[in-house]
């Protein structure tokens, strides 16, 4: 019996929000709410995979304005896995924070699904602000609610995205998503918004939200999914596969700033933000490099990015609670630390983690382009340094992880998936890449392009090197008769002086102004105004579309 398209799409779109409502309704019974909501979430997830699988088999799936292409349908299930990991972390929060985070994540995910599946610019614009509002609501449930970090940036990102949709609508004369044949103003605005939502813009929007203590930081899993979907829409679908040096250069600058931020991080949240931000910027570098290879690199990068950032949030986000280290938590910390290590390696593009094939292909393409345009060689080197700096900055995170049992085990499973994807990229995605590229009319590439063009390091050589290097370590473990417990707090990689008592000057004045503005809710008011402007722009877009008969 074939499930009708309408049912599949409805379940996929509405299912995550229903799961959140079920969770909320059964709030008093922890395990019952987890099982019931989990079942609903799994049903929605299965529906999303079914949509993907049908499109993979060259069928069309459509219902009213929801008629996704294979690329957009691919983003949804991967984003849902990242959000699921964040949900597991959110469920462990206490009181109102858990409610804010779980409901916010589930509602946001539904909005992301509808946005990804919709072929109408108006439809996408309508659901665009939902994750931002969910993040704001979740932040209000935390203890630091006065600050609402990142909300202004997210509201600005929404406004920019709506303007991008409006430009595309005006220029194409149609509310249906169509290819514009190049990177124009509309797609550039959408890419800027996508970068902010992915967390690639340092100190802005999702970046700031991830670096916060409150439950709003977990909503970033859905925001990243939305950012990737917007990036896929604006880049390969609307703009095509043309290269763009300004986009590539901006992505490299963002990577370097992220790396520097990671090196200077004094808190675990900042270190986590930096490594996720650096990885997010590499996505835009791949889009900026353009061509079929750039598109292939993007297809390799985004699943690993969403999964790895989800694992990092699950096991590495410390939240507001501090759990003391002790004998009972040692195994959990080791498992969680290993999972976080793999996630960080994936985000930094290190082998054999999931981000390596895409990062390698991006750098390979950039150096190939560098034979004609030497600027690309400099960009490649700078991006590589940014990633190395970000991963060096993430090393102290490994010591500070304190996950629960379920997050540690689920994180380990996620890390296993990342290692599998990173080791066998062609086996995992070869057919999918070709179908996506065919659907976007990109020039053909051979299926095995994606594995790095390293010399074939024979398995024997690697095994011999691994065994040779394991012998001294094993001897030290044996001589010491085990491991010592080294749990501790986060200690940043770079030495920083204590600020000491403030004695006037610009910094003191800035702190005073910040404190006063927090008391007067200036930031919150400004963010709300910007979001209202975005909502007003959406209303205007709907009215114009209605007048032209597109509703």
């Amino acid at each position, binding site marked *: 019996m074939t499930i009708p398209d309408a049912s599949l799409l409805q379940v996929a779109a509405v299912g995550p929000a229903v799961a959140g409502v079920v969770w909320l309704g059964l709030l008093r019974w922890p395990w019952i709410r987890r099982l019931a909501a989990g079942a609903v979430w799994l049903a929605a997830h299965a529906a999303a995979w079914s949509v993907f699988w049908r499109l993979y088999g060259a069928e069309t799936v459509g219902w009213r304005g929801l008629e996704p292409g294979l690329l957009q349908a691919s983003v949804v299930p991967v984003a849902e896995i990242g959000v699921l990991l964040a949900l597991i972390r959110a469920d462990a929060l206490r009181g109102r924070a858990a409610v804010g985070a779980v409901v916010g994540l589930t509602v946001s995910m539904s909005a992301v699904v509808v946005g990804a599946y919709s072929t109408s610019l108006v439809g996408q614009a309508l659901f665009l602000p939902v994750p931002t509002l969910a993040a704001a609501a979740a932040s209000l449930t935390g203890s630091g609610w006065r600050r609402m970090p990142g909300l202004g940036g997210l509201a600005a990102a929404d406004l920019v995205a709506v303007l991008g949709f409006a430009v595309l609508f005006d220029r194409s004369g149609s509310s249906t998503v169509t290819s514009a044949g190049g990177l124009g103003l509309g797609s550039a605005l959408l890419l800027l918004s996508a970068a902010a939502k992915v967390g690639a813009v340092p100190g802005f929007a999702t970046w700031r939200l991830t670096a916060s203590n409150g439950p709003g930081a977990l909503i970033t899993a859905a925001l990243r999914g939305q950012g990737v979907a917007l990036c896929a829409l604006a880049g390969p679908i609307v703009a095509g596969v043309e290269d763009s040096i300004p986009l590539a250069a901006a992505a490299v600058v963002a990577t370097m700033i992220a790396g520097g931020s990671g090196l200077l991080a004094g808190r675990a949240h900042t270190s986590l933000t930096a490594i996720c931000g650096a990885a997010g910027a590499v996505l835009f570098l791949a889009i900026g490099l353009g061509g079929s290879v750039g598109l292939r690199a993007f297809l390799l990068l985004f699943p690993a990015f969403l999964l790895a950032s989800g694992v990092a949030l699950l096991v590495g986000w410390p939240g507001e609670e501090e759990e003391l280290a002790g004998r009972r938590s040692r195994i959990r910390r080791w498992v969680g630390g290993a999972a976080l290590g793999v996630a960080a390696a994936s985000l930094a593009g290190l082998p054999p983690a999931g981000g390596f094939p895409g990062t390698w292909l991006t750098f390979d393409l950039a150096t190939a382009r560098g034979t004609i345009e030497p600027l690309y060689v400099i960009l490649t080197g700078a991006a590589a340094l940014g990633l190395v700096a970000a991963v060096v900055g993430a090393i102290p995170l490994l010591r500070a992880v304190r996950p629960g049992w379920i997050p540690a085990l689920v994180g380990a499973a996620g890390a296993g998936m990342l290692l599998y994807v990173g080791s066998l990229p062609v086996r995992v995605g070869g057919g999918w890449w070709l179908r996506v590229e065919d659907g976007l009319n990109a020039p053909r590439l051979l299926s095995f392009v994606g594995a790095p063009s390293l010399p074939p*390091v024979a398995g024997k050589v690697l095994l011999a090197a691994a065994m040779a290097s394991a012998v*001294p370590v094993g001897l030290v473990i044996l001589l010491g008769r085990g491991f010592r417990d080294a749990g501790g707090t986060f200690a940043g990689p770079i030495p920083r002086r204590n600020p000491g008592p403030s004695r006037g000057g610009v910094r003191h004045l800035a702190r005073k102004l910040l404190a006063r503005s927090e008391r007067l809710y200036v930031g919150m008011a400004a963010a709300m105004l910007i979001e209202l402007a975005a909502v007003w722009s959406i209303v205007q877009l709907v009215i114009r579309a209605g007048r032209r008969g597109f509703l």
Partner: protein
Amino acid sequence: MAVAVALIVALFLGLVADLATALVLRVVWHGGSVGWPLSAFGADVRLLVMNRDRISVVEAFGAGLGLLGGTLAAAAAVGAAPGNAPFVYLALALGAVGGHAAASLSDIGPAELRAKRARLQFAMVEPAFALALAVGFIRWRAVDLEAVRGAHDVLGSGMEVGPPLASIGLILATLVGLACGALRLAPERAAETGTGGGSSLLVTLCRWSLSGATVLVAAAFLAGGENTLAAGWPLDPALLPALLTAAVGALILGGVRAALDALPWSMRLLAGWGAALLAAVALELVFLA
């Protein structure tokens, strides 16, 4: 087998570098004994066995990666593993990152500060190191150490083969690479009580393997080697020039490290930037030749 022997050779060369550091410190600055690397190693083993001064999981994992990187780079330098340029750089980077990860855990203030400064040094000097490595490959117009060794077989030693500008550029790049190699290392055992034992032992091994791998790669650019490893490797006489060059490189690396250790920490950062400038000069010389 050749891969394991490459690690042993690298560790030995790293020990030579440490002994050179001790010698220079003793002769020039009258500090410490000449044999402190060996005595410190012995003290660490004693602390590990008698006091059960164990390592943590993060240190074990970091040290494993550091030794793996050093092993792969050393094996690539001597021809026991592929010598593709990105592979060699990645192996050296892995060796450095792993060593710093192994040295990253310390609750003792001065030791923690030393580890943090070493990480900053590594990050600051890495562009210069990568550039120096690139100059070596560009000099021979090759992207693989196998091709570099082949060029040595046909043309002769890198220090003698003209044009002179290219030789000078190559030698300058090698010196810069050795200096940067000294700045990339994980910090040595601190003098404070409680910082020895298993952790210090593994960090020492990572440091030695990375030093040894760095000088072996430098020697491959200057003196070549053999692409086919005979059964008697490394005792094969045909390999002696390369191994002797590596030994001299280890002495230079150790001496540079002693000189840098005597500088204030901020001056070491300046030295890193100076190295980047010299690497750029070497690149220009190689291009002009």
